[in-house]
């Protein structure tokens, strides 16, 4: 078989078949298409403002390593004018986290970006290892998810940053869409396909990789020789999410476009009126000031449970989100303060209403 | 150790009979060594000896594929220890596929 020319430049030899488009392209055109598609995602959605301070959620894994690389590249190439930082969360899982943190530190040197590391232990007084000891391996994902979210926001706020970018890719978004349908969670269904989730009292979060295939991220890292640490969590993931993940992979093998087809479906859905009115109103947690739909935010409830030894009861929608007696030596989460920049931004930004699709 | 046997009537529904030579009902004998034969033994015997092809459409590991219902004397096997349910002589075991039900 004679070598085929690249379908984009018609010049060089095709080396890669892109799963996203089915086109056969050369390395250079692949890099170009990969990077510029992300640039288009960012600019079409007016994601950033000039001069903004942005934290890149860095786990040491492929998504965040490539994200750091691409953000730095595009920031310079297209003159976004952003101040970029790396923000890494140490969940306190022995062995697993140590290596990935080394990768993040290498990223700091490679891209000359300031790095902040915030640990669960520092923030909550508990590591994931201790949490798993206390609650077992069935619900540990709930704890980790809730704690990580707050940790990222607090880490950003401490740097006076009000915008976080994460490496959630198209496969992740498609999987989350399916999970929300399986759970009947329509309010999250609309929001999980937004490129940026904004709110009055929350840190903005954006996903520049929303339309980027996971496979292509691996291909990019491979050809650009970016090293990363495989971040499969050693604590087994929810069985339910495992079903969704396998389904997506099998769909992709059958018809590669299904990953973005799912995202397309979700973008064109709207919640019916009745459900919108029933959604709970947001308020501030009485104990730590973080955003919450109840008196106490989820993290405070979970932490309270850990401290009091009643952690298993804190899981699930029926859990009581109510303050219990706390003595002076029961650990609580420090007060959360929104960064000044966010307050300034809210005066000029139009907040993107969570209920509409992009 | 002596062999314990059970005479069973097995029925297939929901299109499953196609896997078993288009037979809707078969009579067979299931046996086990030194203990009472269970549904697990029956499923294994059916998969080993009565399916000509595509046995993975009936059995997965040592249980039936998702989508296949199992009734023992018209009672859901979920109420009776499932695979470990012990069988009696003359029991009627029904396997119904709910795939492609329309």
């Amino acid at each position, binding site marked *: 078989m004679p070598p085929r020319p690249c379908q984009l430049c018609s010049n060089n030899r095709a080396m890669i078949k892109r799963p996203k*488009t089915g*086109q056969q392209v050369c390395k250079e055109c692949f890099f170009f298409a990969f990077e510029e598609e992300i640039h*288009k995602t960012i600019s079409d959605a007016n994601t950033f403002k000039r001069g903004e301070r942005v934290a890149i959620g860095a786990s040491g*894994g492929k998504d965040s390593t490539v994200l750091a690389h691409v953000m730095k590249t595009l920031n310079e190439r297209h003159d976004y004018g952003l101040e970029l930082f790396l923000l890494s969360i140490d969940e306190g899982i022995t062995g697993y986290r140590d290596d990935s943190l080394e990768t993040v530190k290498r990223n700091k040197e490679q891209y000359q970006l300031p790095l902040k590391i915030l640990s669960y232990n520092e923030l909550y007084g508990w590591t994931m290892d201790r949490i798993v000891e206390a609650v077992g391996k069935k619900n540990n994902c*709930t704890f*980790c998810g*809730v704690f990580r*979210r707050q940790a990222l926001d607090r880490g950003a706020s401490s740097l006076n940053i009000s915008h976080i970018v994460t490496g*959630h890719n198209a496969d992740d978004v498609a999987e989350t869409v399916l999970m929300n*349908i*399986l*759970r*009947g*969670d*329509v*309010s*999250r269904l609309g*929001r*999980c396909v937004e490129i940026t989730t904004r709110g009055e009292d929350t840190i903005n979060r954006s996903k520049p990789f929303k*339309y980027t295939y996971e496979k292509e991220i691996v291909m990019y890292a491979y050809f650009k020789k970016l090293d990363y640490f495989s971040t499969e969590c050693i604590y087994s*993931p929810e069985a*339910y999410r495992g*079903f969704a993940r396998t*389904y997506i992979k*099998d*769909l992709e093998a*059958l*018809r590669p*476009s*299904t990953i973005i*087809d*799912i995202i397309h*479906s*979700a*973008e*064109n*859905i*709207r*919640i*019916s009126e*009745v459900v919108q009115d029933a959604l709970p109103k947001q308020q501030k947690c009485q104990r730590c000031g973080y955003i919450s*739909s109840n008196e106490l935010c*989820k993290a405070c409830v979970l932490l309270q449970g850990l401290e009091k030894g009643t952690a298993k009861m804190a899981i699930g*929608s029926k859990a009581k989100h109510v303050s219990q007696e706390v003595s002076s030596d029961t650990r609580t989460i420090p007060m959360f303060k929104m960064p000044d920049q966010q307050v300034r931004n809210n005066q000029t930004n139009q907040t993107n209403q969570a209920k509409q699709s992009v | 150790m002596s062999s314990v046997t059970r005479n069973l009537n097995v029925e297939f*529904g*929901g*299109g499953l009979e196609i896997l078993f030579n288009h037979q809707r009902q078969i009579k067979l004998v299931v046996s086990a060594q030194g203990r009472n034969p269970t549904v697990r033994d029956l499923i294994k015997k059916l998969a080993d000896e009565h399916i000509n092809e595509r046995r993975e459409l009936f059995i997965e590991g040592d249980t039936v594929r*998702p*989508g296949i*219902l199992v*009734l023992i004397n*018209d*009672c*859901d096997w979920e*109420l009776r220890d499932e695979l470990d349910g012990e069988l009696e002589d003359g029991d009627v075991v029904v396997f*119904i596929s*709910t795939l*492609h*039900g*329309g």
Partner: protein
Amino acid sequence: MSCSNPQSEVKDPGADIPERRTKPKNNQCIKCKTAAPVIQIRHALYCRECFVYATSGKFLKWFLSNFKPNDVHPVFYVAVSGGPSSRYLLQLLHTQMSPRKGKGSFIRPGSAEKLVVIYVDQSKVVPGAENLRNHIEDMVKDFPSVEIIEADVSESWKGSQASISAYLSGQPGQPPSATASEPTADLFDSTLSTSSQESHLALLTHHIILREARKHADSLLGKDSTAPLFLGTSATRVTIKLLSSMSRGRGWSVGSGEVQPESTQYGLNVYQPLLNTSSKEIAYYNRFAIPAHSQAVVNRSFTTFSPPKSSIDRLTEELVVSLERGFPSTVSTVARTGNKISFAGETKEGERLCTLCGWPARAKANEWKNGIAITKLAGEEDESNPLADMLCYGCYTNLTDSRARSHVNYALPGWTDEYAEKQKVTESEMRKEIEDCLIDDNDNDNE
């Protein structure tokens, strides 16, 4: 990140991962408390008799919430495939249409003078499938007054029924285009992927059912009449449909009537009474309450006994039945989700409809895909693509997925002309309105 588990604070009350299946606490029939239980539904156990009775009761309750007790309709339409769900539906409709005694007094539930069964014969497009007319006649023998309408899917694009305005020409990786040449294939061409063929079959079948009911109602009751049409979609089936539609890029359509419990289509009142009923309940009821000689028939589909990874629908079915086994409330949760969502576009009068499936379609089906992927370098011309504009995203994807062949002209059913017409009307009406503002091309030389 490999663990993408964003737990945001605000979520639907009650939205959570469905619970794992648990063994019931006590071993008693929830109704009579005496006979041994034989089936568990959610958290309740039922003995055989109470289960059958509760099934009729559940249907009666649904029925009375939609139909007044002493009304007698001229006709009920029901779509019957011959499979377990439609057999179940027929049985329950039969109990409604027969007079029954209630507690003390004589209760006559809402009923109809005539039942019209619509059967779509798929045997000529699905390899190995049979015509089930005889079986269906057995199933409806005991109805007081019944008529069977049989329609052959394979006739819907031939002869007088064929489309005259356009054929779709597909090429792999290229958008479909209009052609006036003779058709060289149909929508079940063996070189189309199984995923595409099964989607086409579902679309055509759905249209044929509605159109046959409409035609019959026109002649029996008049052109603007309305009548009930019952579909036997179960909770399991609607869950598969919703997830499969999401995966095909037509996820929005499920909120627009396809999975609503009631909707109006073609002027008919479409009811789906079984949306809360799982395939397991249907199988048990059929075994307990229906005589052996008139049981359901499972006909071959494109994926009967194929491995799970052979098509999108088959893969989705596999996911749903696996989930149902470990987490039994999955299907009811997902079925309810369908009720909470709707189409985010504008569905106004004259909205552009997809030529093939008739659902509202965004302009330029491939525009969204082109927006998120770079498939040509700057400076190259966009190919003009008139017919791609006429398809919705889902139908467009069906004709251009990896297996599509080049230089094929697909024959279309005649009703696609109506959908195509609607687009032309919209454009010319719009033009009329703005005519006096249009500047001649020769005068326009700025920008």
